[in-house]
């Protein structure tokens, strides 16, 4: 338990220190050292508890309860201050509603409720711990170099807000640990709100008009989700008389009708946090934030808190058809439509954002199905998505600073210009969509679990969504793969900290893919068996090993089998004219002038454009959620 406490408190201390440090050198040392400490502590916690069926700690404190309320007040204060400054009425109103709600809850309904077993961890928490502690701190290290370049790219005389930036990153890590370790739902809620406000402040980091507008969009949607969480807390306090999450789930499994409203409300909170349609716009807007923020909050961890909650609720969802239907359909439709829309995007960060939302949708749908097999798949999706996506975000961030653009079309010849970075990026992309890498193995399990539950709609959604996924990743990959000769190598100026973080992600990715069967045995299966009592795994271990052998082959080819001087005679490409320059594809045309051949990828905007597709998802999913809320509130006995 000391380790849990350490993981929660230590990042807070670091954050306080970082807030005061203004020098680059001192900050580098502090961030690197604390990242290593947090990473090591997480690894120790995970390593020494492999295969755990769940451990609960007796820990409750009235003072802590009040501290949580205090933190909520501070959060609301921050939001209110911004709302007043930028005259955003809606954000202010929602914040006030939440404040009143939280205070009334604490002082009227909750002051007598005590949760003796305040802290816990099980194998799912450990999986999240690994993601937060190792990937999260890796991203913090990456941010050192990135933010130095970022500051250099800012206009002259721009305020240096980096102390605040790094402090927020560490506060965020602490809050995430609170979410995954708290059995007391009130504490969990506090962590939840802290992550929301961290995200708010980081999106608005540059204080440009666009950043502020997007930050407010995020805070409004997530405050709405927070109110959903609060509703669930009220139900717990009034109807069930407990804030213990594990008890809540047990009660829910025993009597789904009793907790119907709470489950729908919690699922709503999870869905907003995971940016499912119709809330996808906040995550897209969040891409204005510096790239490490996008990597840490908006793809690998914070949005995972949303699906973490949903996966936790999976056993209850399995028993209650209406919330389950809502979660499945919202997730499934989001997966399909966001995969479509990703095809039409050429901005790399937007492609990543759409792909993130789509994958979260898939995890959401798995949670909605709620069978052991689906939970197995969901956990692997969480893990591989976190690693691969942070690798990709970090690659895009570095590329942006060195080629001056985040447009995929500008990444032409990246394989020549930034050979190492391009390989990392290719590895990340391949892991996202192609067998035998982990993500696809997880999708495979997802498909089987959908079939086993006769979820025909989800099967069809997955079939078409995967096809779209292939399209947008493959064309990006193709852009990177181009090789023309010997343009200047521009990656020599990439900071060491950036390489360290990139290498960490790449190594983690390869190791995780190759040792997938072992991760399944020691980390994923224990959770599934501890919750359901039976093991559900759709893919035989033999097939998993075949997949990992194939991964090893691909990785060797990618990193060792390419490059080197050609042994064959080298010629210029055929351009229907005499070639004049291989790099820029110029050739002598019929009038003896010079023509340049250009080729762009396909974006098919008239088929898969946002304008055409987004409204469909927004309307559909809103209707589904409203219907589910109404049914749960009016006729829970029907369930």
């Amino acid at each position, binding site marked *: 338990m000391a380790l849990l406490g350490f993981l929660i408190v230590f990042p807070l201390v670091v954050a306080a220190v970082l807030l005061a440090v203004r020098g680059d050198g001192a900050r580098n040392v502090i961030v690197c050292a604390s990242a290593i400490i947090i990473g090591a502590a997480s690894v120790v916690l995970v390593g020494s508890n492999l295969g755990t069926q769940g451990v609960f700690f007796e820990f409750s404190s009235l003072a802590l309860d009040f501290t949580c309320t205090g933190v909520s007040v501070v959060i609301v204060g921050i939001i209110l201050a911004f709302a007043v400054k930028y005259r955003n009425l809606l954000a202010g109103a929602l914040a006030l509603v939440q404040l009143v709600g939280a205070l009334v809850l604490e002082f009227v309904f909750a002051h007598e409720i005590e949760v003796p077993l305040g802290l816990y961890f099980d194998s799912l928490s450990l999986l999240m711990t690994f993601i937060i502690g190792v990937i999260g701190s890796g991203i913090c290290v990456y941010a050192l170099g990135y933010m130095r370049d970022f500051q250099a790219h800012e206009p002259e005389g721009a305020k240096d807000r980096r102390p605040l930036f790094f402090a927020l990153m560490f506060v965020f890590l602490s809050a995430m640990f609170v979410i995954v370790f708290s059995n007391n739902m009130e504490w969990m809620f506090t962590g939840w709100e802290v992550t929301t406000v961290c995200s708010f402040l980081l999106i608005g980091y540059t204080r440009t008009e666009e950043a502020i507008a997007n930050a407010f969009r995020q805070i409004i949607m997530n405050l709405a989700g927070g109110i959903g969480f609060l509703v669930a807390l009220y139900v717990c306090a009034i109807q069930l008389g407990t804030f213990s999450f594990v008890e809540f789930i047990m009660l829910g499994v025993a009597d789904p009708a009793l907790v119907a409203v709470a489950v729908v409300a919690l699922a709503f909170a999870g869905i907003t946090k995971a940016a499912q349609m119709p809330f996808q716009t906040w995550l897209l807007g969040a891409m204005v934030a510096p790239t490490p923020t996008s990597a840490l909050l908006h793809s690998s961890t914070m949005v995972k808190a949303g699906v973490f909650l949903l996966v936790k609720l999976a056993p209850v969802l399995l028993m209650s058809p209406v919330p389950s239907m809502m979660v499945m359909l919202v997730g499934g439709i989001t997966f399909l439509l966001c995969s479509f829309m990703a095809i039409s995007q050429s901005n790399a960060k937007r492609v990543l954002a759409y792909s993130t939302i789509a994958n979260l949708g898939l995890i959401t749908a798995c949670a909605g199905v709620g069978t052991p097999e689906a939970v197995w798949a969901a956990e692997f999706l969480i893990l591989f998505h976190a690693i691969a996506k942070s690798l990709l975000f970090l690659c895009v961030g570095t590329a942006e600073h060195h080629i001056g653009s985040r447009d995929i079309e500008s990444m032409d010849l990246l394989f020549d210009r930034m050979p190492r970075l391009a390989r990392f990026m290719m590895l990340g992309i391949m892991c996202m969509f192609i067998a035998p890498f982990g993500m696809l193995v997880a999708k495979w399990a997802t498909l089987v679990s959908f079939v086993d539950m006769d979820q025909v709609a989800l099967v069809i959604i997955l079939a078409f969504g995967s096809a779209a996924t292939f399209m947008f990743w*493959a064309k990006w990959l193709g852009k990177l793969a181009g090789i023309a000769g010997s343009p200047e190598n521009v990656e020599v100026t990439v900071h060491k900290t950036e390489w360290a973080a990139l290498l960490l992600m790449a190594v983690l990715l390869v190791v995780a893919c190759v040792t997938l069967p072992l991760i399944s045995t020691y980390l994923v299966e224990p959770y599934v068996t501890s919750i359901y009592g039976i093991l559900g795994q759709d893919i035989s271990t033999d097939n998993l*090993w075949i997949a990992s052998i194939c991964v090893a082959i691909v990785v060797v080819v990618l990193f060792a089998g390419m490059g080197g001087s050609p042994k064959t005679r080298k010629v210029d490409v055929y351009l229907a004219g005499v070639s004049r320059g291989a790099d820029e594809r110029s050739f002598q045309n019929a009038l003896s002038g010079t023509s340049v051949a250009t080729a762009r990828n396909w974006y098919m905007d008239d088929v898969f454009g946002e304008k055409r597709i987004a409204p469909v998802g927004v309307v559909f999913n809103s209707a589904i959620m409203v219907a589910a809320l109404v049914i749960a509130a009016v006729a829970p006995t029907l369930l």
Partner: protein
Amino acid sequence: MTILTTLIGTVAFALIAPVVGCLLAGLDRIISARMQGRVGPPLLQPYYDVRKLFEKESVSVNSVERTYVGCALLFAWVAGGVFFTGGNLLMCVFIITLSSLFFIMAAYSTRSPYAEVGAARETLQVMAYEPMVLLLAVGFYLAAGTFDVGDVLALDAPVITTIWLVFLGLLFILTIKLRKSPFDLSMSHHAHQEIVRGMTTEMSGPTLGLVEIMHWCENVLFLGWIGMFFVWGNPLSIILAVAVVLAVYFLEIWIDNNFARVKWQLMLKSAWAVALAAGGVNIAFLAFL
């Protein structure tokens, strides 16, 4: 155990499939010629062609293109090995997709505008047929109760009896997978409807030879998927399966010779509509009834 069988199967497939595929290709050329009122080349002409390619000088635009093509061929073999040793159908589907991806990357890596157009079209082709392929695997699972292809030998009736609609859907996309006109958008052997040479514009000599061999192996694998529908506990059913496969191959040759290449919009829409109608309806039927 599965790993060892798969390995042995992969090696065996790598040895046998090129021979079978080559003969099929020779047959294709003779039949096509007869349809066009010509005599056509000898049966072994594809073999002579590929042998000649391997005797040519190795010329390339970069050093990685052949590595990618090699990977594509390797994974095509693995997919075949998985399938013909009775392995998991989904695994086979995923690995053959990996093979397609490597081929796409080979084309992109050359940076020839013509090859890039071909590669983009190939990507689109994959997107067009992938839903039906996945629904094929799901349909097979619902009909046979397993993803393991080998288990068809224990069935009382072939899966065609329950998933004939899926079979029709597969027939439709088979034209794309076999690279036959009207769906040979990315690379065509009909010179009159091709932009230079599509994906293989910059591939020559031994590299092009590898592409040819890969194409043969793929054809054998995809025809294996067709045959799978007609095999059950009765050993004689293998003969039936082979007969059906030959008939389907003849049908594909006939289609190839009678239709001009379509635009991508029509291909995508029709392939998805077929997947939704044939795959979706059949699966819904099996799941709910």
